[in-house]
């Protein structure tokens, strides 16, 4: 399928779905409307809500806050994950002692932590950042841990025979290996940073996309809920595109990364 054809088909799906949605919510079929607008709104209302947000400029503040929370959650979670992943992988005894607790903490559904964080850190951005951090941390942690553990024995011996000290092995062998594992999970961890931010906002805040959706839901403004969802999806897709660009830069040496994502 050519690129143009593919794009056409993809657009067609959107047009059909939106068309059906509009049709079923506005035109009576056999005397009744199949999708009551109270529950399903309709594309025109949703669209005008989005346009209104952008034309008045209210949306920018919320987008900026959600973006900022996601970035902070990603940065802090990644730093922590890298540090602990490295430490545990290089100190098997520490890893063995903490193993059950790490598993326990990771098994916990993070949503239940939101009220605690709100209690501790207030309704501002930090309670949302904290929620994102708990999600991002474990993904990065496990990947870095694996990355350091699974350095090929031959490559390691080669480094040693070429005269590398422990510090040089760290820099030239363990570090790049761990980073490559971390970057291979970049899409997931960035996605989770956004999830943490939005869920946190939804559960209690005064700004952000999650807040916007929650507010609309609170007054049965279904158009507002859908509009918020669309803006959120577009936001996540844009971030994901950015991640793909970064990933392609950093992982040029990897056969799969260079080949499969085109």
């Amino acid at each position, binding site marked *: 399928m050519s690129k143009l054809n593919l794009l056409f088909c993809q657009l067609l799906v959107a047009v059909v779905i939106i068309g059906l949605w509009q049709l079923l919510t506005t035109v009576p079929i056999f005397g009744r409307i199949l999708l009551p607008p109270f529950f399903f709104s309709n594309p025109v209302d949703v669209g005008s809500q989005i346009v209104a947000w952008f034309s008045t400029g209210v949306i920018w503040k919320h987008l900026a806050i959600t973006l900022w929370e996601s970035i902070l959650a990603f940065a802090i979670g990644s730093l922590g994950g890298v540090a602990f992943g490295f430490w545990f992988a290089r100190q098997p005894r520490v890893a063995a002692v903490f193993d059950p607790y790490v598993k326990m903490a990771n098994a916990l559904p993070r949503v239940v932590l939101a009220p605690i964080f709100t209690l501790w850190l207030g309704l501002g951005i930090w309670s949302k950042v904290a929620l994102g951090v708990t999600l991002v941390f474990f993904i990065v942690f496990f990947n870095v841990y694996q990355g350091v553990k699974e350095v090929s024995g031959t490559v390691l*011996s*080669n480094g040693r025979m*070429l*005269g590398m000290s422990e510090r040089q092995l760290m820099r*030239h062998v363990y570090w790049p*290996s761990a980073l490559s594992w971390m970057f291979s999970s970049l899409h997931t961890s960035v996605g989770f940073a956004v999830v943490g931010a939005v869920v946190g906002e939804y559960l209690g805040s005064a700004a952000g996309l999650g807040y916007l959706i929650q507010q609309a839901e609170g007054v049965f403004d279904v158009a507002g809920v859908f509009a918020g969802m669309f803006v959120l999806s577009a936001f996540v897709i844009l971030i994901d595109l950015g991640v793909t660009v970064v990933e392609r830069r950093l992982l040029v*040496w*990897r056969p799969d990364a260079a080949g499969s994502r085109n």
Partner: protein
Amino acid sequence: MQAGTAAAPWAVELDDATVAFRLADARVYTAVEQARLSVAHGEFVAIVGPTGCGKSTLLNVAAGLLKPAAGAVRIFGEPLTGLNRQAGYLFQADALFPWKTAIDNVAIGLEIAGASRTDAHDAAQKWLTSVGLGAFAGRYPHMLSGGQRKRVALAQVLIRNPKILLMDEPFGPLDAQTRQIMGNLLLELWTADRKAVLFVTHDLEEAIALADRVVIMSAGPGSRIIGDWRVPLARPRDIFEIRLEKEFHDLHREIWSVLKDEVMKGYAQSAQSVEALA
């Protein structure tokens, strides 16, 4: 080429080296027993033996990657403690750093020794050219073929100018033609400044074609060195041509008559251990 006197000690000397591993069930597996082997300055020695006879183990002992349970290892007369800093090691498996380009892979040995990045890169470019990969400096290992990766690995080891070269079936994973081309390349580079070489292979033809001496090991466990032949073929050699000569055939027949029994024993043993596992 009789070295080993006080004035010129052997480059590598294994003195009754025994290597044993502790197995999971607390039994001790003796891989190599009382191996006695000496390699002179500038001498090319090939070790041949059946699969699983501990050839690579012996090489790792000479590299200092493994400590012998008994016996001594001496490098230029000095007892070996820790890693063998005089040696370059060419591994059987891919050992290049996959996250470094070809030129960075070659330059790293100089860089970690304290050379500046520009100097290291200049030298690396020269080495890449001399292994025939001058135009591939910017490629990552996964963009190179198996033979090209071996060339980079060879340059990576030789750029440090080690006095001893340890090679563990380095051309094992390559196809037959590429192996011969790599063999010729190795001989060409080796002739330039004769290093002491310890070359492990399971391919007797390759061993005779390349080496000054061929050492045969018995089947494991507890394998020993059971034969040591001098290869009387003249240098410089061409690996493609040398296999056609009569002397080559005579020596091959002679060594094979000894090696064959060990190969059969090795097979029988690995078949037994498979049955034991099953």
